[in-house]
């Protein structure tokens, strides 16, 4: 979900996505860099993200972006997370 949310503002390459997720979480989340790429490839295989290659400074760079299916999945997972985190909050901090 973090990766999908990180791609929501716009396309990004792997390193940029890691930085973006870290910045959006106020530097609380530092994604394990090695785990990001297999996860992105799995999301691509599932049709939730798509990628394209671009040339940057003479080398190839892979850039990812959300698909429509990925946006739908993000919406679903975000709703689930909101429901779950509210429940935890209610349990930990009862009114």
């Amino acid at each position, binding site marked *: 979900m973090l990766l999908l949310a990180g791609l929501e503002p716009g396309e990004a390459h*792997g*390193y940029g996505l890691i930085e973006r997720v870290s910045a959006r979480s106020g530097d609380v989340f530092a994604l394990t*860099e*090695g785990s990001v*790429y297999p996860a992105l490839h799995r999301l691509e*295989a599932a*049709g939730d993200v798509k990628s394209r290659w671009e040339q940057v400074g003479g080398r190839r760079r892979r850039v990812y972006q959300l698909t429509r*299916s990925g946006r739908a999945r993000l919406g679903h997972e975000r709703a689930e997370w909101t429901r779950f985190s509210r429940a935890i909050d209610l349990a930990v901090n009862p009114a």
Partner: protein
Amino acid sequence: MRETEQWLAEMRDHLQRFPRRRRPILDELADHLLVSVEELRAAGLDASEAEREALRRLGDPRPLAAEFAGDIARNRSITVTRLVSAVLLSTFGLVWIPVILALLRGPFTPGPELDYVRLAPDSLSHNTWLWLVAVGLAPLVYLAAIAFSAGRWIQLGSVAAGTCYLGAVTATWLRVWPPAWIQITTWALVTLVALAGAGRPSRSVRTLSPRLASVAVCAIAADALAQLLASGIAIPHNLPGVLMALPNLAVLFLSPICLIALISYSDAHSVTGRLSATRR
């Protein structure tokens, strides 16, 4: 950048089984490392410190390569399963839907080409033996491909065997009743259904479709082999004949379900197990 080159070389070695997928993965990781080093140098580290830190953050190449390899193998297995399932599932419609349609229209007599099932094995023709080999090999190679997340040659063999099976059944049926247009329409419809199921309609259908198709594949093969082994049982050509054959067909359909369930479970388990072992 010698350490980076060594890291990438190690990654390359670990992914040598997947030459086509290796290049983009290495390009992507190399780009990541270069950007990471640039950022770390901009933050004040010297070149060698930045390189070491970038490599440390990316981690050990062995478990990372194992994770990529597991995903690639699983995706290949799913792709091959879908492809072969679609091909073989289509033969289900080819063989059985015309029979059912014929039964609904009244009794019919199979053409002379189907008489081989009444012959003794030593009198089978060369073409019939080829048909038998195709029918026998297809499910075996296919199951091997699923069970072992097999390499490309077994997977190619699986696809080839599946195609042979389809070709053999098509060739058999095109020379006999019913008319070709019924067979072709049926085949096209069932293939479309199978491909739709093997596509990406939803997560649950994606998961179920290859399993269901696998069951159908095994059922077709088991049924065909059982008929051939019985050597004397012809395809039932009237309603009472079909009803009498139902218990036997039920057994033939149920046993592959158990087999496929076990194989699917063990396949997923073995991929996960390999990754865990590598991480340890």
